[in-house]
């Protein structure tokens, strides 16, 4: 960050005499702390309880998904539990005129499907005999990775197009902004469904395992306009600042001016919008998976695991199969939203309290 030595104004007690003696790099008073802008932002961020809560939730989920499988090694995410189970049910049958007798029905299940939570399966097993907890971890890895990738690509595209539009203005700006208008009016979800259907066709030859990555890739291609508009708006106002005139006078190259001087100043807003869109990307990915456009069952993400509404029996009696992934999605989205809100308040200079 530039201007490392900016002092937080409300904390600074100006002492006329001592300021004349000390050099500008040192604090005027031993009791006055010098804070860099980063420190100030962090302090304001951690002052809010909600943002700490969000941070805890997100970090917790990451530990759960990445460290969890190292600790919980009983079952792999695509390992089928083939423990046969035998259950007996006893029925008393009374026939008039004879002794009542017992009918013992022995049910032998070759696979351990839809098991209730137990010691060997803390969250039970699902319809396909997979361990729910192990799949929760691996599914989380897929969901979080995809969402992060998507947000980074969207931001990169947004910075490039928004930066170019804002800096050059004129015809280029007009063209890029019209493209933005068109993309913003595209019905996003239906279009993704079409692409999902398209990818099913054999001629395109996309491995089902990677279909969700293709889909999210396509999603980034149509959802950068929001970021681009944000970047453009910021750059339009920053372009007129004095330090840009100075950069011009120094004879810097255009690339350097855009990416070294303008983009870093847009970063605060960008970080906020990135965190907030992480949440919506997770929801997008979950919805696509829910509708059956995600990875096949062995590599399933959270969204796929929830889709049991077609089977009222699982819906009613096996909450342990579809509840946990839903709760994980809520925790992830909520966490990112809390962090995003906290960052917005912390980065907004008007919000100083």
């Amino acid at each position, binding site marked *: 960050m530039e201007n490392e030595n900016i002092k937080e104004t409300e904390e600074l007690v100006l002492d006329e005499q001592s300021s004349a003696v000390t050099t500008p790099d040192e604090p005027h008073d031993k009791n006055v702390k010098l804070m860099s802008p980063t420190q100030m932002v962090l302090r304001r961020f951690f002052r809010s*309880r*909600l943002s700490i809560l969000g941070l805890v939730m997100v970090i917790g989920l990451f530990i759960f998904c990445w460290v969890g499988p190292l600790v919980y090694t009983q079952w792999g995410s695509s390992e089928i539990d083939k423990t046969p189970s035998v259950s007996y049910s006893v029925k008393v049958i009374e026939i008039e005129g004879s002794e009542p007798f017992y009918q013992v029905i022995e049910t032998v299940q070759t696979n351990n499907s839809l098991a209730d939570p137990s010691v060997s399966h803390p969250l039970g097993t699902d319809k396909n005999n997979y361990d729910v907890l192990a799949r929760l971890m691996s599914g989380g890895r897929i969901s979080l990775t995809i969402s992060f990738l998507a947000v980074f690509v969207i931001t990169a595209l947004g910075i490039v197009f928004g930066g170019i539009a804002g800096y050059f203005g004129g015809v280029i700006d007009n063209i890029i902004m*019209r*493209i933005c*208008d*068109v993309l*913003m*009016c*595209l*019905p996003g*979800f*239906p*279009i993704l*469904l*079409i*692409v999902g*259907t*398209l990818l*099913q*066709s*054999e*001629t*395109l030859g996309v491995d089902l395992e990677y279909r969700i990555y293709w889909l999210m890739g396509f999603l980034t291609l149509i959802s950068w306009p929001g970021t681009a508009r944000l970047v453009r708006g910021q750059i339009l106002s920053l372009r007129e600042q004095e330090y840009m005139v100075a950069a011009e006078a120094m004879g810097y190259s255009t690339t350097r001016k855009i990416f070294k001087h303008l983009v870093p100043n847009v970063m605060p807003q960008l970080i906020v919008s990135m965190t907030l869109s992480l*949440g919506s990307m997770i*929801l997008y990915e*979950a*919805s696509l998976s*829910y*509708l059956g456009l995600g990875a096949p069952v062995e590599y399933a993400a959270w*969204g796929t695991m*929830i*889709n*049991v*509404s077609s089977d*009222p029996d699982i*819906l*009613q009696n096996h*909450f342990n199969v*579809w509840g946990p992934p*839903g709760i994980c*999605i*809520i925790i992830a*989205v*909520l966490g990112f*939203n*809390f962090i995003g809100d906290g960052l917005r308040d912390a980065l907004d200079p008007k919000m100083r309290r």
Partner: protein
Amino acid sequence: MLKYIAKRLGQSILILLGVSLIIYILIRCMPVSFIEDKIAQMNQGGATIPEETIVAMKEMYGLQDDSFLGILKGYANWLGNLCQFDFGDSFKYGAPVIDIIKRDMGVSFAVALVATFFEFMIAIPLGITAATHQYSIRDYIVTILVMIGISLPSFFFAQILQNIFSLELGWFPFQGFFNASTDSSPIALFFDKCYHLVLPIVTVTVLSIGGRMRMTRTNMLEVMNSDYIRTARAKGLKERVVIYKHAFRNTMIPLVTSLAGLLPSLFSGAMITEQVFNLPGIGNTAYTAMMAADIPFIMGYNMFLALLSVLGVLLADLMYAVVDPRVKLQ
């Protein structure tokens, strides 16, 4: 004003052209053999799609000619039909696309309208209390609750509602739009339908309250910090009058404006919610059509959605100028 509207209308037409081009290109990426497979699947499933329909469909979208000129001609042809409001015949449903959209829009519209009503009725008071009691316990609780609402995946929440209220408690029907047995009087049928729509409406409402509440809260906070509120307080007005007469009226501007922007969501249908509750709404219909690669319906439906969102943006901008006299359109 008129000049501005004309200019914006021109822009909207250009945007629609762009959208139609993208949708057409996407559809053209679909291999013809894939479409034929899908049609064969449908025919096997009991549907009978006459050969003429398929030929006419290929004719209409120029699918048989893969040269650049052919693609161009196909696009022009399709666009021409579109301008005459001829969306073609859906082969999944065997009827003109426009008729199907009209038929299924009613349910979606009813759900969206009632949900929007409740959304505003619940979100605005919540937003006002959160703003007037900023940083209090009340603010925190309301914020956390609505944030959970935003973060809920619609299908998950819908499944929870189904589980609790229809399977466990048996208060509401599990799925569907009406019970087949109810063929008595139209009034009974109407109430039966309303009864089936309760859970979907609750789902949509809970998911949308959050955004609206936060919008109200932010705007309310902004207004509460302005000078005329201080003046109103200095005059010795009651806090109630200050909040509801002076502050809230000015918060109305963005709220009313956003009402126009809701136009697309009123008609487009909540695809996932309708799917979970198996409602015969436009979203569910479109989902089935898309999974079956029903080209005429897909193209028609997407153009319909694009038209709605273009209109929504336009209306929102115009509303802004109507509601807020400070805004001048150029």
